[in-house]
């Protein structure tokens, strides 16, 4: 209970403070208490109180007043001295006119008290005597600035430019003065070139159209992007400020640009296409980057078919799990490499050597290709015919050699003391 009591006190305090702060607004203000000659008027913003006639006769002291909003008469009234008359002013306000006294003969004049109530005085931009009455008054209007931000394209690619044209039109009923534009920096774009740049301050007549900015923006990121609005602060002819005008926020689709890619050309050539069994053949792998970006993680598997055997090769080749491989961290644009290795043909037959290439093309695409040598024909080895002969053809000489050798050994032993 104690707590609730404290809170209540606090709220009460705040309400009191607010009441004091708004007192000036709510209070009545005598904005004029002076004499106005017949035929002259008093302008309060767009309202004019014309003192059309002044009567100075003792028993009929008073004045005829006409109330105009701009050039439109909204009321007229004869007021005797000490009479008051009130009319609505603008939205909430009220003006009360009281004739204090009248005097003069050649130049009759009336003393008026004009009180403005329920009106915030800071909105009061004009309050003065107008010689000649409402016909001579100038009224302030509301300039309306239509700012249009236009793009020459709604879809571009990253890295391309879009032309931005910012135009403004005053569709209001008053001249815009002290117009200052503000065009914010655009995220994901860079300003490439500026053709027109008139950010003010300037004035814009009613119905006037102005081109205030023309420039090129280059997209640096992809996506569906919305440009920030161009804003303008301005006043009207009487220096009345208005809340800032804001342009449209055009959208643009920025497509991701095609990335530059590496393209590897792979060839695989055998030194000889016909070899005798037991001989070696050299395979030369040529790899060249004909693309526009470096290739990364370049891997070549050298496929050695059954019946053939890897013998040796250039330094780039390493044997992993028994299989020869080439690995290059990267192969730059235009770079070329030639790697050779030799294989031994153990069996007769027709073979080809395949080099399987895989790499990252720099655009995060994994590319796989293969280069295969022409057919390599492994024919009968130089001494293979021996194997085709009946066994006795070579067994016999071997037996003879063994026999002779054994005999020589035996004889040698027989005579060796």
């Amino acid at each position, binding site marked *: 209970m104690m707590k609730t009591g404290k809170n209540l006190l606090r709220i009460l305090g705040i309400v009191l403070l607010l009441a004091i702060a708004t007192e000036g607004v709510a209070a009545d203000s005598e904005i004029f208490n002076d004499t106005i000659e017949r035929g002259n008027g008093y302008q309060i913003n767009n309202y004019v109180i014309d003192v059309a006639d002044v009567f100075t006769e003792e028993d009929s002291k008073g004045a005829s007043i006409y109330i105009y909003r701009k050039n439109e008469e909204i009321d007229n009234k004869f007021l005797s001295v000490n009479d008051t008359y009130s009319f609505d002013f603008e939205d909430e306000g009220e003006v009360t006119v009281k004739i204090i006294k009248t005097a003069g003969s050649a130049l009759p004049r009336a003393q008026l008290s004009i009180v403005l109530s329920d009106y915030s005085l800071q909105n009061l931009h004009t309050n003065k005597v107008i010689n000649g009455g409402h016909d001579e008054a100038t009224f302030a209007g509301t300039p309306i600035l239509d700012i249009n931000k236009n793009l020459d394209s709604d879809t571009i690619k990253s890295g391309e430019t879009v032309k931005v044209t910012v135009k403004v039109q005053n569709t209001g009923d008053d001249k815009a003065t002290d117009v200052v534009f503000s065009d914010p920096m655009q995220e994901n774009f860079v300003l490439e070139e500026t053709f027109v740049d008139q950010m003010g301050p300037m004035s814009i007549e009613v119905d006037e159209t102005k081109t205030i900015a023309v420039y090129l923006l280059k997209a640096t990121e992809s996506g569906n992007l919305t440009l920030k609005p161009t804003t303008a602060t301005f006043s009207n002819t009487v220096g009345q400020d208005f809340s800032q005008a804001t342009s449209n926020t055009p959208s643009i689709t920025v497509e991701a640009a095609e990335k530059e890619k590496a393209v590897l050309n792979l060839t695989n050539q055998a030194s000889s296409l016909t070899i005798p069994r037991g001989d070696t053949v050299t395979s030369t792998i040529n790899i060249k980057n004909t693309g526009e970006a470096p290739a990364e993680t370049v891997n070549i598997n050298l496929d050695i078919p059954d019946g053939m055997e890897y013998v040796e090769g250039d330094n780039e080749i390493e044997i992993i799990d028994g299989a020869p491989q080439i690995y290059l961290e990267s192969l730059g644009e235009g770079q070329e490499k030639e790697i050779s290795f030799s294989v031994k043909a153990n069996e007769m037959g027709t073979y080809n050597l395949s080099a399987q290439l895989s790499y990252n093309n720099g655009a995060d695409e994994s590319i796989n290709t293969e280069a295969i040598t022409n057919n390599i024909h492994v024919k009968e080895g130089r001494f293979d015919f021996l194997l085709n002969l009946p066994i006795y053809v070579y067994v016999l000489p071997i037996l003879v050699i063994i026999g002779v050798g054994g005999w020589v050994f035996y004889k040698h032993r*027989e005579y060796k003391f």
Partner: protein
Amino acid sequence: MLNVLIIGNGQCGNRVLDAINKEAFGKKSKFAKFYSKQKYKSNVETIAINTAINDLKELEFTKAKDRVHIPHLHGVGANRNVGKQVFEENKEHITRKVEDRGPFDVAFVITSSSGGTGSSFTPLLVKELKERYDFPVYSLVVLPFREEGTLYLQNTAFSLKEIRESGTDGIILADNQFLKDLGGNVQSAYDGINGMIAERMMFLLDSMDSEMMMVTDLGDFQTVMAGGAGLATIGYYRADKDLPVKTAIQNALAPSGLLFSTNVYEEASRAMVIIKGDNEYLSIDDISNEIEKLSANVGHVFKGIIVRKGEYPQVLVVSTMESASEIENLYNVAIDAIGQEREKKNRIENEKEVDKAFSKIDGLEPHY
């Protein structure tokens, strides 16, 4: 078929034996033993005996099992007394080698007369064989070069005498000095001389064991060798072209065909002449004429003819000697040599007297 035993004692005996084994292969190639067979007609057993193992190792055509090493330093250094002692100590071992290969019909023991091992082993071995067996044992003795020194001459004098007295059935002499003097085909002196001896021995063995008609045999050889002073030599000639058999016989008897310096027509006692060759060369008349000429001066002459198709005439003569003037010369020189050796020994003993004089002050100290 005869069973023949050939023993080579000492380095000279070993090498001559090896030369015979080589000759038996026929071909003169060093590698003949690897592809050829020995062409002994008889059943021939060869044994090389030496105290020097290196001498045995040098042999090339004598089987390892046929080489008998009697361990004693590296030879006996021409000292026959040591040699005799070593033989006595190893007598059983040596005779068992013979026993294992026997029985034999005839034996030849080859040795130099002048070295230590061969010249001392041979008389003792012959004596041993004669005591145990009754086959004839012949000694083939190689005489030294005269310039080889007094020790060799001395050894020769004693060993020849001992071999004669050992019971041998005959001594066949070959004289290094004589063969060297002849020059001719003696290039590397020893190999040449050994080859000559081997050639003759092969022919002799061949002729003793031939099954052909009109041939001599072991009995004939025994009879020849039993004649004269127990000393014999062998003459030989091999024609290398178409030559009358008469000339071939004369050449075999000439000094160039003999192993020892002798005039067969004057000094011979008995002889055996074996002629080999193609029929076309073997004119019986010519042969008879030549043999008659010989037997007119010598006692009995045995004659054998071996027909070999396509071969030029070859003639072998074995002849024992009634007298040997060369041996007499040798002994005269040897006696001088013995005298010299004795003198030398005395000199050495006198030197020992000097040693004694020096030794008198052993253990004394000079006083000052």
